[in-house]
């Protein structure tokens, strides 16, 4: 029943990894935003958001992705989103986010995309 929220950040080979767990809604999205802001403020513009433990997202969470992607791209980075479970992926797709964001299978694939870029 409990699906508590957590967000964790780590950095490896110049790529930031933000791991979301539980649900991101209007209650928890501010914490996600803070984590994202911290990376951008620190000049880290290559960001992977791992969602394989994310069970739910509402527009408050989608908005966090939306508000940062332009800035990191301008600075030569990107936000790669990996590990979406089908239910969460569906929410991204209703809004056409698959046209704007690089949605990939897993973390390894996300790293490859950065290497390839």
């Amino acid at each position, binding site marked *: 029943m409990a699906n508590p929220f957590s967000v964790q950040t780590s950095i490896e080979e110049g790529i930031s990894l933000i791991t979301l767990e539980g649900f991101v809604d*209007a209650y928890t999205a501010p914490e996600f935003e803070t984590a994202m802001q911290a990376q951008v403020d620190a000049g880290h513009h290559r960001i992977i958001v791992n969602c394989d433990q994310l069970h739910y997202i509402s527009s408050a969470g989608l908005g966090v992705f939306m*508000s940062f992607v332009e800035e990191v791209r301008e600075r030569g980075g990107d936000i790669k989103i990996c590990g979406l479970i089908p239910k969460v992926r569906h929410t991204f797709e209703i809004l056409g986010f698959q046209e*704007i964001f690089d949605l990939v299978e897993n973390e390894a694939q996300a790293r490859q995309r950065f290497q390839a870029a």
Partner: protein
Amino acid sequence: MAAIAKKFTLEVPSSTENLVLIRDFVTRIAQQAHLDEQEISNLELAVDEACANVIEHAYGQDTRQEVIIQAICDEEAVRISVIDTGKGFDPTGVTPASIDSLVTERRSGGLGIRLIKALMDEVSYQIQPGQKNELHMIKRLRKHA
């Protein structure tokens, strides 16, 4: 049993902390109405968005206010109303911008009403600012859709 509509009401303080409780409520009702998994998720998300809007916009984060969620289920549909007594707004005045332009403008909002409309079969507002504002959402059951 057959012809009786089932009515459920939930009243909670206007705080985003209660969205999880609201989603549970909606999910359980949707399960009882035998919606499939995707439909249950859709209903859950639409009601979350509607309530988050009330909490943020209608009541401006004043947690002393109350959000009311009403669900009526019969053989044809699940009808959900989200009711507030907050400031109201003109829903016809909200024209959704394209996602591209939201991204360019680095906006984090503007997705909620769009989602609600995409997820539900029917959506309508009844606004009486400061009195009673209602958002009515209908999800028809498939055999009747």
